[in-house]
C-alpha cells in the first residue's frame, strides 16, 4: 500500500504502540495486561509498519528473524521458571527482590515473574510475526 497518509501516521503510531505494549507488559502483574497481550500489541505495531512500508522494511526493522525471537522468548520463560531451583523451591515459584525497599516503602519490585512475562512477550511477538510474514509473502 502506498499511502502517504498511512506512512506518515505510521511513523508516529508505531512508536506509541510499542511504548504502550511495554506499559501493558509491566502493569500486567497486578492489573489486566501481561506478556501475552503486550506481545500481541507489539506484533500489531510491526504489522502496521509492514502494511505501510512493505514486508522487507518490516523485516529489516525487526533486525532478527521472528522465529528466532520466538524460540529465544520461550527459552527465557523456561529459564525464569527454572531460577526457583537456585532457591531450592518448586518450579515456577515467584522470587522477589525489592530494590530500595525499607520498613515503610516497598521499593521497586523485581522478580523472575517479570522475566517470565518478558519471555512470553518475545515468544508471542516472534510467533505472530512469523505467521504474518509467511502468510503475507506467499
Amino acid at each position, binding site marked *: 500500500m502506498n499511502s502517504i497518509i498511512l506512512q506518515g501516521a505510521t511513523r508516529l503510531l508505531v512508536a506509541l504502540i510499542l511504548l504502550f505494549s511495554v506499559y501493558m507488559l509491566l502493569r500486567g502483574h497486578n492489573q489486566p495486561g501481561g506478556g501475552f497481550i503486550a506481545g500481541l500489541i507489539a506484533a500489531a505495531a510491526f504489522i502496521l509498519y509492514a502494511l505501510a512500508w512493505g514486508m522487507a522494511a518490516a523485516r529489516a526493522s525487526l533486525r532478527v528473524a521472528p522465529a*528466532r525471537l520466538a524460540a529465544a522468548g*520461550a527459552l527465557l520463560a*523456561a529459564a525464569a521458571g*527454572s531460577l526457583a531451583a537456585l532457591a531450592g523451591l*518448586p518450579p*515456577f515459584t*515467584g522470587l522477589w527482590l525489592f530494590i530500595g525497599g525499607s520498613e515503610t516503602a516497598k521499593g521497586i519490585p523485581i522478580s523472575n515473574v517479570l522475566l517470565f512475562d518478558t519471555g512470553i512477550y518475545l515468544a508471542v511477538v516472534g510467533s505472530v510475526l512469523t505467521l504474518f510474514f509467511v502468510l503475507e509473502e506467499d
Partner: protein
Amino acid sequence: MGWLLALPFLLPIASGLLAFAARRNTGLARGISLLGCGLLLLVTAWIFASVSRQGPLVAQMGNWPAPFGITLVVDRLSAIMLLVTGLVGLAVGVFALADIDRRRERLGFQGFFQLLLAGVCGSFVTGDLFNLYVWFEVMLIASFALLVLGGERQQVDGGIKYVALNLVSTLLMLTAIGLVYGLTGTLNLADLHLAIAAQGESVAVNALAVLLIGAFGIKAALFPLFFWLPASYHVPPVAVTAVFAGLLTKVGVYALIRTFTLVFPADLEFAHNLLLVAALLTMLTGVLGAAAQYEFRRILAFHIISQIGFLVLGLALFTPLALAGAVFYMIHNIVAKTNLLLISGTVRRMAGSFELAQIGGVYRASPLMATLFFIAAFSLAGFPPLSGFWAKLLLVTASLEEASYWVAAVLLVTGALTLFSMSKIWAEAFWKEHPGGGALALAALGRPEQWQRVVPSLLLVLVTVAMGIYPEPLITFARDTADELLNPAGYIDAVLSQSPD
C-alpha cells in the same frame, strides 16, 4: 521433588527449543534431540522407580497449595505411561535419523518431535483438568506440524482432516471444563473427586461424563469418532506415524481412565454402558476396516482403532482385573504397535512401497526383519507366549468373571481377525516373491542407516518378548495400579494434604 516431576516436560521443551534453534545445523539438532530422548528415558525410569517404591509423588507448581495452584501428580498409572513414553521416544528418535529426510530436519522436525513428547508427558503428570487441556493443545500443535511438515499435497489433505476433527474435541473438552468449574468451583482432579461426590447422581454429572467421553473419545479414536485417524495416519513419514500410533490415541484413553476412576463416581451406570458399547463397536469396526485394506500402513492404522476398543473395554467393565488388563494391554500395545510401524518403514525402504500387491520377498532379503515382524505381529494378535497373549487373557478372564459371555466372544473374534490381517501382511510382504525384481537386502542400506533402523526395532521386540515370557512383574504392577485407581483415597490424600515447601 517438584523438579523431578516437572522434568518429563521441561526436558523435551528445552531440547526441542534448542534443536529448533539449531535446525539448520542438522548434526547438532540431531545430537540435542537424541540427548533429550536419552535423558527423558532416564528421568522417567527414575520416577517409575520411586513411585513403585513409595506411592504417588506430588508437586505443587509455583509453591501454590492445592487446589489453588497447578498440581503435578504421578501415581502408578502415570509412572508406567511416562516410562513407556520415554522408551518409545528414544526408539523413534533413533529411527527418525534414518527415516526423516534432510529437508524436513531443516524445517524443524526435531523441535516438533520433542514438543510432542513434552505434550504427552505433560498430560501424564498433570493433576489438573485445565492443565490437561493445555497439554492436549501442545500435542495438537506439535502433531499438526509433524503431519504437514514437508508440505506434500496428501499431507496437507490429511492434516486438515486431522486438525478439524481434533478441534471439535478440544471445543467439547473446553465446554466440559467450563461446566465442571461452574458446577463445582474447582478443576484440581483430586478436589473434583470430593466435589462431584457431593453432587450425587445428578443430570449434570451424567451430562459432563458424556461430554468428556465425546472429547476424549475423539482423541482416542473411539467408535464412531475415529474417522480422522485412517484419514491422516498414512500421510506423514513413518517415524511420525509410529510415534502418533504409539502415544497420541493412548493419551486419550489415559484421560478417560483418569477421569472415570478419579473424578466420576464408580456407579455411573449410563456412562459405563455407553463406554462398553462404544468399546465393542470400536474393536469390531477397526478390525473389519483393517481386513478390507491392502496397504501396510493403513492396515496397521485400522488396528490402532481396534486396540483402542480393548483398552476402553477394560475401563468399561470396571473391575480390578479388567482395569489391570487395560493397563497391561496399553503397555504391550504401545510397544508392539510402534514397533510394527517402524518395521513397516524399513520394509518400504527395502521393497519400495506400502502397497502389499507391489512388494514381497522381504523374508529372503532379510530373515532378521522377518523375525522382528513375526514376533511383533503375533504378539499383537495375542499368540502365546508373547505379551499380547497375557493382555488378552486378563481381559477375557475379566469379562468371563462378570458373566459377559458376548463381550468375551467379541474379544476372541477380534483377536482372530487381527491374526488374519497379520498373516495377510506376512504372506504378501515377507513370504511371496517380489513382483518386480526383488527387495533390497538390509546390508545394501549402508552401515549407519542399517543400525538406525534395526536397533530400535530390536530393542522394542526384546521388551515384547520379555513381557511375554516373564509377565509376572508387570501383571503384579498392573493389579496394584488397578487397586490404586479403584481406591483413589491415597491419591487424593497425597494431593490435598501436602503443604507448600
